[in-house]
């Protein structure tokens, strides 16, 4: 069949499909659609094998890919999906990636503990990792007798600080995750760096005598924030190791599979960081709450996070994507 005859014969079919696709809002229950889609798919392969012109082939290709887009969408949001993520998928992803979480935890915690010990014994050790000006800043932030702790200026409002924590802390977690793509080096760097800094400040501040304000400040939101950084690091290590040791896959494929699994952990970390930012701005900084209340509630938060991470998601399937 010549192209002109072909176009004359089926032009109406293509027009019908075109109009159906252009209709707004798009009606995905249209009963004609599946039939038209199959028919035009057939026309496309005919047009190709008969070597019809490029413009006709690309027009049919365009129609078919529009239909294909409508039919093969990823699953959209459904009810209870968030609950399912919270109680099953996220903890199950952590469980699947236990070793990465443990590795990330030790890369973060060990330097923190060592630095804490060193700074506690010798307060000047802090200057090996920080500028003197920065140290003074930290000392001012946790000086007892202020209205608000953990801030350079007590006058900063809670909401302003909430914004700062969202922007700054979640940014750090994202960078830790993304750094994993550099064969894990970036993730290790951020974990180490943040661990050293936290340990250093904690040891130094305690030595200066502001321990009470600092620890009672950190304990509450720390349960969510520090854990989330460790989780983001674990997600970063997961994709980093997929590149270093891809196993039976090609490197790109290993990376893709790892990223799909790791991003679940990142979602969870984002959630925890939002909670942490909220607590840090509105709860931890308060000077009206006594340290004993903050310690008690903080301990409860830690218990909650640890129990959640260790106990949830045991029944879920253990294999990844």
């Amino acid at each position, binding site marked *: 069949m*010549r*192209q*002109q*005859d072909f*176009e004359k014969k089926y032009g109406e079919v293509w027009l019908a499909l075109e109009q159906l696709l252009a209709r707004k809002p798009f009606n995905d229950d249209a009963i004609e659609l599946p039939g038209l*889609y*199959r028919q035009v*798919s057939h026309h*496309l*392969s005919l047009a*190709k094998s008969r*070597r019809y*012109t*490029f*413009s*006709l082939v*690309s*027009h049919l*290709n*365009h129609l*078919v*890919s529009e239909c*294909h*887009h409508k039919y*093969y*969408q*990823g699953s959209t949001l459904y009810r209870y999906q968030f609950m399912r993520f919270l109680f099953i998928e996220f903890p199950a992803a952590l469980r699947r990636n236990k070793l990465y979480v443990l590795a990330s935890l030790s890369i973060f915690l060990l330097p923190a503990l060592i630095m804490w010990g060193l700074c506690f014994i010798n307060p000047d050790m802090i200057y090996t990792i920080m500028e003197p000006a920065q140290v003074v800043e930290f000392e001012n932030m946790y000086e007892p007798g202020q209205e608000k702790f953990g801030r350079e200026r007590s*006058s*900063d*409002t809670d*909401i*302003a*600080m*909430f*914004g*700062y924590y*969202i*922007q700054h802390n*979640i*940014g750090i977690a*994202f*960078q830790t*995750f*993304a*750094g994993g*793509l*550099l064969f894990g080096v*970036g993730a290790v760097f951020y974990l180490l760096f943040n661990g050293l800094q936290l340990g250093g400040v904690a040891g130094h501040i305690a030595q200066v005598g502001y321990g009470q304000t600092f620890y009672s400040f950190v304990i509450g939101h720390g349960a969510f924030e520090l854990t989330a950084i460790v989780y983001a690091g674990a997600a970063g290590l997961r*994709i980093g190791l997929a590149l270093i040791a891809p196993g039976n896959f090609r490197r*790109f494929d290993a*990376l*893709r599979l790892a*990223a*799909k699994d790791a*991003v*679940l952990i*990142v*979602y969870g970390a984002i959630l925890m960081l939002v909670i942490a930012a909220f607590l840090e701005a509105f709860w931890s900084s308060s000077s009206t709450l006594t340290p004993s209340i903050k310690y008690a509630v903080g301990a409860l938060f830690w218990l909650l996070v640890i129990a959640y991470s260790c106990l949830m998601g045991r029944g879920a399937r253990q294999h990844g994507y």
Partner: protein
Amino acid sequence: MPEASPHLFDTIHAVEIPEGIDLHADLSGPIPRALAYASDLGIRAVILMIGGIISLLIGKAGMGFWLILSFLLEWWYPVFFEMLRQGQTPGKKFFNLVVVNEDLTPVTWSSSIIRNLLRAVDFLPSFYVAGLVSLTATRRFQRLGDLAAGTIVIQKSLQGRATALPDADTQAPSTAFSAAEQDAIIEFTLRHKSLSQARQEELSNILAPVTHKQGREGVEYLRALGNWFMGAR
């Protein structure tokens, strides 16, 4: 998924879909993507500036809103538009680019989030150098985030169908033409409106040894052949 031979360099990405046919998509190269990114950057800067003015009016708490706004714009702006606007940020829409999965299905939440969070690495050491290297070194023009998410950026075709044949005679060929040669003549005929007269004559002169015709006459003759091959009688 059919892979092109490693020796051929092609911007067409083919995927076999469940209907048993190959779908084609034009991959987008670094330049349109950089331009689209620059426009998005401009839009983000304007929003951030307007947000900054508003937050100044609000006062101290406004600072918090502004920081949250800048966080959302930095990390979530592309995700938001890719999910709600069928894979197109405003900048991409302007340059007719679309983000899709490698199998040409619409981009999903997780792939969009992966590709946009990993932007941080594509940006390294600065100005998207890593992304650009990855873009030019991979066959499907993927930056590192695309590789991890399994996404590609394609060029949406714009051109309408140019099937109108020129008003010319129809003439049967006097010599045999192979299928590929016929295709070439047909495509030449169909482009009678988009190519300048001088260029058309230049092209038809290449065939002078076969057609024995020069200039305008040669063009007319090729068009007549094209009409014939297209089925006009």
